[in-house]
């Protein structure tokens, strides 16, 4: 820890002691820190009235964090959950698990012990402070998620004759060629209007260094470019220690490969390193929340009606085991049911609220886990974690970040499909999906992929019985019309979930939405 850091921390500690958390947060923001999250710590729910009750609908992360915090604040809380488990989309499939999708297809997962598929969330950005806070608070062990791997592959059917290339090579060639072209534009005076002579010199120096250009500002097959893209013969020792450069690709292929999409992807704030995953599967987070709210949960409860009046909220639910219809009553309600499902539940919310609930479509992602007998991507290809990207329906193959270097099996993520590719895979039987994933993934590992395959499992989110979709897909127009209406407290009922956030499709969004919702609900409860 360097001295300026310590000084700054001491200053912040002093501000914290004098002005409290809010002043500290303000000071940190002013100094350019803490601006990466809207998380402000535990919600202030002090002064709850004795006996005030809240019904929480849905035991996903949004519902459970609401229950946990409201209960801690003194509210009488009950959670109704449709499934026979809590956790919602925070979920891992392990060997021995059974999963039945809409339409009735049932899969018996056969992964070896300690291996898993995360059908939903699978990586956590370092700035998702709310989620990381609760992981720490609930004792969920985290490990690094290997997000960026230069040695994984990029495949595009329209580039390099359909053969995959290393991300490292394509990205280096993209940057090198762009640097060379920009240098040419400078020399041809195309940028004279924007740049002074001094600017031009500085930019050319930058382009040379960034793009690995030679002294003539050319990107060529030489030891310079090989420093980024790799060598034909890497540097070694002794007699043949001298490296042999690799040959740069045709720029037309590099552009056609769309490697720039992968490069831009890694620049997304939410995709930047460091990323994390729970040890033992993403579902560990849901299980930890569950443990902390377990006495409040009624499982196997299918909500069929949500009504509120001046005195409270009445929710009708169907016990999916016995078929019995029951009413649950409370003063207030946090509804964390996914919008596609909520849209089909009878309620007496306002017309505007109903329109908002109906306005947001859900994503159709498909994930497929494939257990391979040996970790050939590590032993044969020197790939340790990270993703190989493809223009095929599976979209990627992602390599496991745990049990590295072991002899035994590994479970690959054999697909993370979206859009048209996901529709095609979702429409298949689970067996057909595995075959498609093996066919397509073989492009990266032709000799081994099928040969080493042992078993697999898939989840098509459009067929998940309890969400009928992966997560809310807002666009700007729908946001403008409906977002504020959707998140607004409507008398005694407030909605929570990733769908009620600007961090959509992330666990962090579910938590931030819920903390905001219960803070407003608490204020309303005090006014009652």
């Amino acid at each position, binding site marked *: 820890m360097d001295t300026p850091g310590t000084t700054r921390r001491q200053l912040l500690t002093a501000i914290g002691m004098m002005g409290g958390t809010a002043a500290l947060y303000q000071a940190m923001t002013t100094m350019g820190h803490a601006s990466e999250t809207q998380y402000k710590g535990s919600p202030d729910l002090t002064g709850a009235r004795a006996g005030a009750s809240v019904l929480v609908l849905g035991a996903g992360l949004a519902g459970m964090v609401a229950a946990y915090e409201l209960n801690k604040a003194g509210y009488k809380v009950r959670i109704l959950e449709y499934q026979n488990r809590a956790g919602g989309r925070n979920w891992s499939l392990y060997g021995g698990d059974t999963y039945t999708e809409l339409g009735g297809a049932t899969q018996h997962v056969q992964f070896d012990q300690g291996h898993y598929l995360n059908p939903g969330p699978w990586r956590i950005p370092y700035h998702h402070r709310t989620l990381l806070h609760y992981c720490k608070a609930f004792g969920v062990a985290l490990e690094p998620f290997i997000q960026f791997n230069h040695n994984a592959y990029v495949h595009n059917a329209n580039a390099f004759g359909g053969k995959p290339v290393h991300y490292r090579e394509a990205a280096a060639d993209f940057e090198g060629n762009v640097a060379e072209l920009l240098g040419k534009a400078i020399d041809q005076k195309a940028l004279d209007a924007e740049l002074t002579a001094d600017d031009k010199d500085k930019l050319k120096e930058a382009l040379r260094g960034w793009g690995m250009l030679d002294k003539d500002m050319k990107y060529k097959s030489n030891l310079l470019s090989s420093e980024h893209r790799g060598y034909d013969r890497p540097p070694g020792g002794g007699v043949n220690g001298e490296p042999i450069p690799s040959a740069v690709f045709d720029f037309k292929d590099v552009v056609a490969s769309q490697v720039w999409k992968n490069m831009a992807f890694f620049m997304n704030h939410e995709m930047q390193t460091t990323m994390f995953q729970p040890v033992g599967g993403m579902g560990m987070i849901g299980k930890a929340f569950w443990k902390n709210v377990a006495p409040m949960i009624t499982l196997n409860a299918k909500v069929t009606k949500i009504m509120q009046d001046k005195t409270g909220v009445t929710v009708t639910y169907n016990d999916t085991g016995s078929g019995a219809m029951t009413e649950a009553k409370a003063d207030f309600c946090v509804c964390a049911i996914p919008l*596609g499902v909520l849209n089909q539940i009878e309620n007496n919310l306002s017309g505007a609220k109903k329109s908002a609930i109906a306005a947001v479509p859900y994503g159709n992602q498909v994930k497929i886990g494939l257990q391979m007998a040996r970790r050939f991507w590590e032993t044969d290809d020197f790939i340790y974690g990270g993703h190989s990207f493809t223009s095929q329906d599976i979209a990627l193959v992602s390599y496991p970040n745990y049990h590295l270097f072991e002899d035994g099996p590994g479970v690959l993520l054999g697909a993370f499909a979206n859009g048209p590719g996901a529709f095609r895979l979702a429409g298949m039987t689970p067996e057909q999906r595995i075959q498609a994933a093996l066919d397509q993934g073989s492009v990266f590992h032709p000799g081994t992929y099928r040969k080493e395959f042992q078993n697999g499992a898939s989840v098509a989110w459009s067929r998940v019985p309890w969400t009928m979709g992966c997560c809310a897909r807002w666009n700007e127009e729908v946001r403008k019309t409906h977002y504020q209406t959707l998140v607004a407290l409507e008398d005694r009922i407030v909605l929570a979930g990733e769908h009620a956030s600007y961090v959509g499709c992330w666990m962090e969004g579910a938590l931030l939405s819920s903390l905001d919702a219960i803070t407003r609900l608490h204020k309303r409860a005090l006014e009652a």
Partner: protein
Amino acid sequence: MTNIARTAFALLLLATPALAQAPQGGDSAGSSSTIAPVPVTGEQVYVQVCQGCHMADAKGGVGAGHIPALAKNPKLEEPGYPIGMIVQGRGAMPPLTDLLSPAQIAAVVTYVRTHFGNNYKTAVKEADVKAMLGQ
């Protein structure tokens, strides 16, 4: 730098307006666009798009909510109903106009209206879909 490379770079620059669109956010694969044969017939569109939710037998499914059955569905008698669903979406179902052309929509609506126990023989035309899209 070759002429081809220059052309490729120019094409890349032309492509930037699409990048300027607001991103949807959320986790994604980060891959290039999917490259696959485009479904043409109504059956191909059904299998490659609709079946992912409505099932191979078009009977939908029931869980916490339900995916409506298209099989033996009297609402399909009025072709504007299924066209409207595909064009506008409803609830969790997204509008599919980014994915399907008017011709593909016409083909799949015609297919569904004449299969799965439905017997509405009047074919839906591309022009009908375009009319609903205001084209």
